[in-house]
């Protein structure tokens, strides 16, 4: 357990006695700024992996906080169903609209169901679900933990001999790991419904052909690929959000900045991981 903050607390300027430390020169400050710029991504990655390691260690240590896990799953999973469904419906609908319009030029509109299904299962469902969960739940997690940090609630946990990583981070990370794949399945179903509605009822595709082509091209391996990605995304979203909130500093402004970093880092992580996982799963591109 590491509850130590590397930043000096608020009255840490005890050595500001007159004449003790000369002000650094402009060149020194410039060099220092450049060094910090180069170093900061490594510091960020190091901090994230430290939290990851602590989370893995604390996840297997009792007590197992099932009630907190369920509460986190309810917040991340159940609370995101509406947003994910809404996104899925419109993504499926617009994709169907574009594909029918595009494929019609060379008489391939019958492939719409297949292409939507494949794209949805492998890519769109896990990526869009993760982005939505990151926006809604990830930012909220960072804000909550950041507020707890700056109001000393996390320190209070430590002084009461409660490991804050185990109490605050482990339930949220496990909840992300479990609920984002489930939300991805919801995205698959609702997205296909949106695509079917537009393709068949608005664009005049044959319903039998739409479904049959989809069944022909999309199989369980495609869905599984999406679920593997979703699990990795869910774990990452919660971990990044917790790490940013857990180490927030600087009052309300600091919490805002931490939330901003959390959303940006999660978006980048989701897109980068998507490529890496895809390349690993299909065995090429790395």
């Amino acid at each position, binding site marked *: 357990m590491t509850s130590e903050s590397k930043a000096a607390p608020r009255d840490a300027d*005890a050595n500001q006695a007159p004449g003790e430390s000369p002000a650094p020169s402009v060149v020194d400050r410039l060099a220092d700024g450049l060094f910090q710029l180069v170093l900061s991504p490594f510091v960020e990655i190091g901090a994230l992996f430290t939290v990851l390691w602590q989370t893995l260690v604390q996840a297997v240590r009792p007590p197992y906080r099932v009630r907190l896990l369920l509460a986190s799953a309810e917040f991340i999973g159940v609370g995101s169903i509406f947003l994910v469904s809404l996104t899925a419906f419109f993504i499926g609908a617009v994709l169907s609209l574009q594909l029918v319009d595009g494929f019609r030029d060379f008489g391939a509109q019958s492939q719409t169901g297949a292409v939507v299904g494949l794209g949805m299962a492998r890519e769109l469902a896990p990526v869009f679900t993760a982005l939505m969960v990151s926006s809604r739940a990830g930012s909220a997690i960072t804000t909550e933990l950041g507020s707890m940090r700056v109001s000393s*609630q996390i320190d209070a946990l430590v*002084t009461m001999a409660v490991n804050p990583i185990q109490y605050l981070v482990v339930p949220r990370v496990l909840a992300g790991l479990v609920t984002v794949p489930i939300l991805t399945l919801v995205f698959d179903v609702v997205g296909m419904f949106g695509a079917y509605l537009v393709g068949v009822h608005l664009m005049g595709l044959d319903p039998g052909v739409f479904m049959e082509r989809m069944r022909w091209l999309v199989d369980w391996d495609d869905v599984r690929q999406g679920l593997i990605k979703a699990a990795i995304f869910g774990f990452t979203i919660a971990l990044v959000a917790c790490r940013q909130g857990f180490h927030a500093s600087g009052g309300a402004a600091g919490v805002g900045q931490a939330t901003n970093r959390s959303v940006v880092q999660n978006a980048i992580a989701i897109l980068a991981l998507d490529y890496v996982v895809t390349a690993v799963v299909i065995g090429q591109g790395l």
Partner: protein
Amino acid sequence: MKRLFGGMGQASTPVETPEARADAVQIRIQDLHKSYGTHEVLKGLSFDIRRGKVNHIIGPSGSGKTVLMRQLVRLESPDSGQILVDGVDWATLHGLTLDRMRIKFGMVFQMSALFDSMTVFENVAFPLVEHTSMSKQEIRERVMDRLGILGVAAAANKSPAELSGGMQKRVAVARALVRESEVLIYDEPTTGLDPLTTQTVDELILETGERFGVTSIVISHDMASVFRIADRITFLNFGRVEATGTPAELLETLEPATLAFIKASGVSQDILDERSRNG
């Protein structure tokens, strides 16, 4: 007071009389150093915390009070030096032993640090739920007892956000005391409070110390409060101990400039004269 971990870490000392024990050193801080990067904040602090007394640690902003507090509750570890609690250097403890030692300490944070996702009752019950096998009924009785003693039983089902600053302080004290801590640390307990609430918090610190027999450590720069209730005062300046002792001893040893600082902080000459006479 019943000791939760009575035998743990006690130095082997001869049998003490109650009076001697009451005046005994509970925490000894020896040559404590702490730096952040190149900033040395604590520069070799050495002083004692007396058992059962109200021990104030004072000093201007930037003197290292909060950094010292974070070492005292082991939120951070010192770079060098020792914090001996009943003879055990608790900077060297880890794991379960460290957690057991933490039970001896209760902490009342400056902003109370109550969990805003819980009610007042749940906040106070939290240490018992986490660390004991007490039944729900036993927990309820203990929590309501502490809330009753501190005069906030009626707020048990409210959320912390619904309480005034003074009431939040009382709930924070109840939470710190619910596991029968031996040492209570208050971080700037009267900062930002109005004079009437400040006086109430001062009385609360005194009453809590007397009723539960706990050692109180109060980090503060509210000089008026300090000279009203302190049994012992340690004055920090630029990360060093400027003076330590009873209020009377302190008033004798302080430089004229420091005395002027104390008077400028709102301490009346009457209080200083009274503490000089009575210690």
